[in-house]
């Protein structure tokens, strides 16, 4: 198709830098040790321990209800807002305990941003959607500085060309794929270190998905990214590290290329190949 139309593919060829050696050399950004979550009396996570590498994409895969979103929400303390949820164990960002009582949770969520399954722009203008976070955190001292943050965030999210002439229009008027990129721009605007994405492409068509995947690939140069996805192909395409969850346990984690060519665990193999487990 490329040769016929002269178009370039949206996603790039597989990254040659994501070899096992490279990944093991990367520094660890996030460390989770023995993380448990209870919703009331029901235990949803049974002691999860994992290292999340810096400037790489880590994907969480596993059957519905295995605890992927629950674990993702532990990383920016979103479970704090859920009634009856109790988190145990430790999670450290650059060696700093994120559950330290003296830590400012609002500031933490600026450092660890989140993008949800369903694009959820505020009922405000495109501009204000992106400016919202920086305004709360007082990141801009002038209108010009705010313009700069909004424009560059939209550019990084690959949305600038499509919206630059309609910044005052409501964000909800964009297409699903554009809304998702707007949400990514919103997450980027507060200069986070980590971006968590919970099934960010599940509502998107293949082209919009490819654009988001290309974006994720570019973003990983500067951010630590964790993505939950139900698409095995997507996990294989975008991530360098993959973790497989099952019934609240972390069953297997490793280099994405190893997990998808030669998983060590039978449960992992059954799940990713679509076998009866």
């Amino acid at each position, binding site marked *: 198709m490329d040769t016929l139309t002269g178009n370039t593919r949206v996603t790039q060829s597989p990254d040659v830098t994501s070899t096992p050696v490279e990944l093991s050399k990367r520094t660890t950004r996030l460390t989770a040790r023995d993380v448990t979550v209870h919703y009331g009396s029901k235990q949803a996570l049974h002691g999860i321990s994992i290292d999340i590498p810096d400037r790489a994409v880590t994907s969480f895969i596993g059957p519905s209800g295995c605890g992927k979103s629950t674990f993702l929400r532990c990383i920016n303390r979103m479970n704090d807002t859920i009634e009856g949820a109790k988190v145990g164990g430790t999670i450290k960002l650059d060696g700093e305990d994120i559950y330290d009582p003296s830590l400012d949770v609002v500031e933490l969520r600026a450092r660890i941003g989140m993008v949800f399954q369903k694009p959820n722009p505020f009922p405000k203008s495109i501009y204000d959607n992106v400016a919202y976070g920086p305004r709360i955190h007082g990141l801009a001292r002038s209108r010009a500085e705010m313009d700069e943050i909004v424009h560059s965030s939209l550019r990084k999210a690959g949305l600038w060309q499509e919206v630059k002439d309609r910044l005052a229009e409501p964000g909800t008027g964009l297409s699903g794929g554009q809304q998702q990129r707007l949400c990514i721009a919103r997450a980027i605007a507060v200069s986070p270190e980590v971006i968590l994405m919970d099934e960010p492409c599940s509502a998107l068509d293949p082209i919009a998905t490819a654009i988001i995947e290309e974006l994720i690939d570019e973003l990983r140069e500067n951010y630590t990214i964790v993505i939950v996805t139900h698409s095995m192909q997507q996990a294989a395409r975008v991530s360098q590290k993959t973790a497989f969850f099952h019934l609240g346990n972390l069953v297997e984690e490793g280099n994405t290329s190893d997990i998808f*060519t030669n998983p060590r665990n039978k449960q992992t193999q059954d799940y990713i*190949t*679509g076998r009866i487990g």
Partner: protein
Amino acid sequence: MATALNEHIVTSYEDELINLNKAISEMGGMVEQAITDAANALLKLDHKAAQDVRQYDKRIDGMKDRITEMAVSIIARRQPIAVDLRMVVTAIQVANDLERTGDMAKQLAKRTVQIESLALAPKFYNGVKHMTDLVARQLKAALDAYASRDAAKAVDVCAHDDEVDAMHTSLFRELLTYMMEDPRNISQCIHLLFCTKSLERVGDHATNIAEAAYYLETGRQLGQDETQRQQL
């Protein structure tokens, strides 16, 4: 031995992989037959049988095309991963090696047709017979290792390739002696030289198939594992 695999949730996918494996087995049987028939035709100087082998090769080529199409179709529609991906990729490799092995049978047959008469010591026939048996055994063992995903058996096949090479060298020396003894032998001996070369290549293809079987089962390359083992 291979660990048992659970079935796919999508039964039509399961069926496609089963059919792919069946096609490999079928093609393996065809090629084994071609090699045996070609070697027998050579030893008996049976020109008719040799012609049959040459004809048969077209069917082997057709089988390879069919397997390639099946594999490409599975890749395009099912996006196989992990053991399934290895199954599909190795099926293409094995079909390729089998097709080349079939070509070797055809080469033997072509030479046979060109040889007018053979008047060599029985010892020599024994040598060729011996080598044929050995490579046929290697081929069969490799195909068995692939079908049963038996890594240990695959390693065994590769370990025995030296024997084929040694036998090839010994037959080469023997042919050289015949040619030096009587220049009238030269023309036939050259033909036979090429035949033993073809048999030796069959041994190489058997090794390739065994390596594919090892990769299919373990997800690792045999060569790399062997090197690591030697370094330990």
